[in-house]
């Protein structure tokens, strides 16, 4: 196999990434547990990363790698802050359900 060729056509990577992204989106919409919703967001981040890296490989350009790295960093920061919010929001309650967070609802 020539060094510049991908194992499969680039469109297959795009499709796989899209399926994974929409599964993550479905998780955010359907699940009411904040932790599982955050994990679904991580799924979407990773789908984007797969796309970055596969295009970087197809074009042999480093920009995709660098920005996949940035996405991982932002995901780490997002997870840290979101989990801190989840902890202080649900520390005193006996049920972890985002529908219970309605202090501003009046």
């Amino acid at each position, binding site marked *: 196999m020539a060094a510049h060729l991908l194992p*499969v*056509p680039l*469109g*297959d*990577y795009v*499709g*796989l990434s*899209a*399926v*994974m*992204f*929409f*599964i993550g989106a*479905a*998780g955010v919409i*359907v*699940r*009411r*547990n904040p*932790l*599982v919703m*955050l*994990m*679904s967001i991580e*799924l979407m981040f*990773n789908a984007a*990363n*797969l796309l970055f*890296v*596969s*295009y970087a*490989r197809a*074009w*042999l350009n*480093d920009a995709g*790698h*660098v920005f996949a*790295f*940035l996405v*991982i*960093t*932002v*995901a*780490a*920061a*997002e997870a*840290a*802050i979101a*989990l*801190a*919010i*989840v*902890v*202080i*929001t*649900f*520390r005193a*309650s*006996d*049920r972890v359900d985002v529908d219970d967070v309605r202090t501003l609802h009046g």
Partner: protein
Amino acid sequence: MSALFWVPAVVLIASALWTITASKPVYSVVALLVNFTALAVFFLTLSAEFLAMIQLIVYSGAILVLFLFVIALLSSGVAPLSLGPNRLPRIALPAAICIAVALGLVVAGAAATHVLPVPAPAALRSAGPAGAANVFGSVQDFGRALFTTYLLPFEVTALILMVAVIGVIVLAGEETPYVATRRRAAETRKAMREAIAREGD
């Protein structure tokens, strides 16, 4: 060669589905671990060796452990963390998964015909053998790009991480007004539940 794509692809999709359907958050974390590992395999086959390691160390090693800590913290003392009452109809999750997969396949079909063109191999550098220095995707190559062409995004990353650290300290460090409000709300809810229970007796 296409087995290098399809075997991790099946693992990737199956573990993603397991993540969003698992009944307990701990199972979701395990599924997500499988998912991230499959993605690291993808990064290796796409000659992104450094990113594959970062994926394992940062995602599996740091972020998932953070999730596990929070699950342990939230479920200590009370009943195990569970799904909670589902306000959506029972059909919602399977329907959402079907729609998600269908949308993904639509994008895949569009991509297969209208995908961005790949430049001619003559215009590209050689990908080179895996593990060799100074070829595409190696640590040297990635590091040179990160610290020369993309230095500004890298510095912005440092700023984002600092904001995250300060934000977490502000949120969780002392007794902030937000924490106090949440505690009062929980106490009020508990008192109301007890009052309703007394009235029922």
